[in-house]
């Protein structure tokens, strides 16, 4: 699964997620990636998210919207990202990763899988990472 969140010069947020699904999945099985509020959500008034990982637990928790609502309630994107992954594992033993972008361009990233690939670009900043959990 791959995903992106962006903030443009006009202050608009957007997010996207795209996936091939899980290994050996039954044809017709859909995970979280393409379900609004689960694998992806964006609202200028709160945040944009893209998720990756084992879809079933992410869907049951509607985790993409869950994290956005955390930012709307005052959490930073990083706090919301960490809380989302903690919630995923605590509630349903799920594994995955999330990126979160606030309306001011502040960022959050968290995962409880062994690794996650990510990248950040803004004026004067360009970072790439494969974080290890």
């Amino acid at each position, binding site marked *: 699964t791959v995903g992106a969140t962006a903030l443009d010069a006009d202050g608009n947020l957007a*997010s996207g997620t*795209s996936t091939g*699904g899980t290994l*050996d999945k039954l044809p017709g099985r859909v995970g979280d990636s393409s379900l609004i509020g689960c694998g992806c959500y964006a609202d200028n008034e709160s945040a944009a998210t893209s998720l990756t990982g084992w879809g079933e637990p992410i869907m049951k928790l509607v985790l993409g919207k869950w994290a956005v609502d955390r930012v709307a309630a005052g959490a930073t994107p990083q706090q919301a990202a960490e809380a989302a992954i903690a919630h995923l594992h605590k509630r349903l033993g799920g594994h995955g990763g999330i990126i979160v972008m606030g309306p001011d361009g502040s*960022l959050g990233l968290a995962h409880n*899988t*062994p690794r996650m*690939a990510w*990248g950040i670009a803004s004026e004067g900043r360009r970072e790439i990472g494969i974080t290890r959990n």
Partner: protein
Amino acid sequence: MRKPTLLIHGGAWAMPDADIAAHENGISNALDAGWAVLERGGSAVDAVQAAITVMEDDEAFDAGRGSYLTRDGRVQLDALMMDGKSLNAGGVGCVERIKNPIQLARLVLDESPHVYFVGTGAERFAMQHGMRPCDNMDLVIPREQKRLYDAQAAGLGDTTFTGAPMAGPLDSHD
């Protein structure tokens, strides 16, 4: 006026060391594509589409060409895009003849009053809006055929996200 910013990911899973370089390269290319849009004043939705299209075309990632295979050895793709200003969203599920599902998701977002299209209906919508279908085998690569064969032969649980079997026999995963 906001400071444009792009944050992308290439998946969270039990990535082996051997895959790190290819993922870093793919993330770098995707960042370049998305940031080029933002840097010239383009929209956030255009930047998201540009970055994800690059990763869909990159065999390193589980999206587009080079994705994991279904039980019957086909690529079956899902994607969603959402615009934070209008709250419009476009999603597609289980498409098998679309090279870049994020672009079809964008068409659903821009050209339809709906949010989600699946299967052959999604593919028909794509063609009605000028997208050219691809053959499913254009999306399948030998690495994933071997991965599927090995997983089915071993009958192990899915280790994708934890590096260790999460469940018992493979079919209990779905």
